[in-house]
């Protein structure tokens, strides 16, 4: 096959630049993505996620003096700040639960989400040098960030135990619902993180905008206050847009108050989370082929 040459079209690529006609359309390369094959490949490379998150944890704590204590400090200091301001200034209703306990449960859930997103969103751009040289399913990078945030949250849970002892508080039996809540939160977090990591590659400005969005999200989510502080009729819409709303509310009800989660809201939030996950993941797989081109 012979390439045909013609002069550059009216000022598009600059005068005098020769433009070649492309390949015949039937040759154009299309990636075929089978959802099952996609997941199978990801599963076969699960060890890579472990090694990558290990790498992130090691690299992070090697440079710092306090080490793993950072994972504790962030939510703990936030709790202190919240206790001083929210409790004193806004007088949040918490039922019979001490406010530090009340806010810490919310903060745990929130720091997991924000930690995963803030690290995961830049995971592709930060690893572009690696992506440019080795093939692997690209979503392992944001997923590793989610795993790292999971480890951090796991460490921070220990403070919750200390708080229980200090306030002589016993978690209630409804705690059995917690795995379901975690599943919903995971789906939402992975969906947003994976989708965002792909978008950041093409819109680098998002890196600057993201901290602002997270800041805003912290106050737009019932972390420092309870769901009761919001108008009742907005609850369903709110849960659909931000599935963390029924999840955080659920954590508090099941762990602290001895109630089951609000299932109607959780159903809305859960459905939305699955949607976020599917859309985010598909979007990621659609554009991942071009990552190396813009690097």
């Amino acid at each position, binding site marked *: 096959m012979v390439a045909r040459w013609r002069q550059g079209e009216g000022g*598009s690529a600059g005068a005098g630049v020769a433009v070649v006609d492309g390949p015949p359309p039937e040759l*154009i390369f299309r990636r075929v993505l089978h959802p099952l094959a996609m997941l199978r490949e990801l599963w076969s490379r699960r060890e890579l996620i472990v090694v990558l998150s290990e790498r992130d944890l090691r690299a992070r704590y*090697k440079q710092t003096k306090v080490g793993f204590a950072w994972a504790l400090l962030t939510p703990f200091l936030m709790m202190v700040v919240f206790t001083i301001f929210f409790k004193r200034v806004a007088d949040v209703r918490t039922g019979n639960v001490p406010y530090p306990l009340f806010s810490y449960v919310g903060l745990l859930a929130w720091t997991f989400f924000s930690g995963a997103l803030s690290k995961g969103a830049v995971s592709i751009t930060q690893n572009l040098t690696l992506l440019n040289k080795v093939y692997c399913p690209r979503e392992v990078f944001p997923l590793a960030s989610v795993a790292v945030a999971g480890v951090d949250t796991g460490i921070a849970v220990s403070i919750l135990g200390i708080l229980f002892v200090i306030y002589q508080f016993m978690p209630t039996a409804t705690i059995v619902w917690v795995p379901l809540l975690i599943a919903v939160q995971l789906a939402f977090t992975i969906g947003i993180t994976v989708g965002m990591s792909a978008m950041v590659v093409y819109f680098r400005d998002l890196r600057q905008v993201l901290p602002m969005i997270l800041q805003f999200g912290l106050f737009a989510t019932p972390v420092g206050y309870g769901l009761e502080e919001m108008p009742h009729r907005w609850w369903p819409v709110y849960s659909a847009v931000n599935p963390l709303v029924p999840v955080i509310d659920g954590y508090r009800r099941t762990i602290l108050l001895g109630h089951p989660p609000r299932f109607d809201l959780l159903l809305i939030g859960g459905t939305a989370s699955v949607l976020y996950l599917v859309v985010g993941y598909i979007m990621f797989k659609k554009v991942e082929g071009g990552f190396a081109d813009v690097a």
Partner: protein
Amino acid sequence: MPTSPEGTIAATQIWKRFRADPTRQSFRAKAGHLKRVATGKGRRGWRWALRDVDFVVEPGESVGLVGINGSGKSTLLKILARVMYPYAGRFDVSGRVGALIEVRAGIHPELTGRENILLYGTLLGLPRRDVASRFDEIVDFAQLEEAVDRQVKFYSSGMQMRLGFGVAAFLEPDVLLVDEVLAVGDTAFQQRCIDRMRAMLAGGTTLVFVSHDLAAVEGISERVVWLHEGQVEGDGPGREVLGAYRGALEHVAAITPTSTGPVQVVKAQVVGPDGDAVRTQGPVEVVLALRATQRFAGRVCIGFSEGPASPIVLLRRDMHLSDDEVTARCLIERLPLPRGRYFLWLGVFQAKGELLPWQPAASFDVIGPDLDAGPAGIARLSPVHVASHWDVGRT
């Protein structure tokens, strides 16, 4: 679909394009683009990096990939490594691919050498225990010794390269893609890399080797593919394609003697006896005519090379130059060069600096026998023909 044996590369009719304008990835640039599209003021320009490239390699074959900068070599390797997707074409690479594209592939500066070996091995798709079982070999090859537990950011660039090559070469890929890595290491390490690649070839690994060191390419690859402006310009036995490639380099390094300096080249010629052809082991004469802007005492250097500025043979002579034309003849009684096309390089120097920069001044062809070919993997640095006589018999 028939599955090809592990280590096969089958890439046909590959096209790849990039943006011609290096747009910044910002909202502003995107908005500008949308505006141009909306107002119909022209489409975005694309530059073809690969155009209709066929690249098919059998398992265990060793292929050298040559071409000037920007000819598409690295892009092709990235497509073969499945890092990049082509715009059009069909491709299939079966088996595990180990790629050394740029030197520090996959190396993370904050981690130790040990952690990096594990990370890179896992990236290549090996289970942890397989990486662990080859760990000692890698450390041994890369000569890291106790440095393996040091953070990679404290490594010298040579150590980083050795680590990168060691990992890629010892994790037993079915296909090894090597992109211009030998440029960094010292001579001893280069030779060990070549030895290792030869051992892998013997073990059935498919090798694609990109380098500007044509001698190394010739030593490792029986077959050479020459890319030019994104198209295959030549594909065939190494010596043939490399010969054509060297010949084409002449046009790139155009023989245009400079006329701006204090010394000008009026004439530069390489001629055989009585204007006859130049023959291996035959007499040859270099004829120079130089003119200077004023009186100079300078050292005239001439050299023969296959193209690059480093000559195979270098000769020099101190002489006086003036604004009258000075003619110099240098007779070489037995030219030790085998058949091929060569370049005469020329420069005039003084203790203080150069009167005429080192430049190719003429090209000439030598008629004669080819050099004896060595076994695969032995790289010949520069071709020299030595008259020899064998006497074989029982003692």
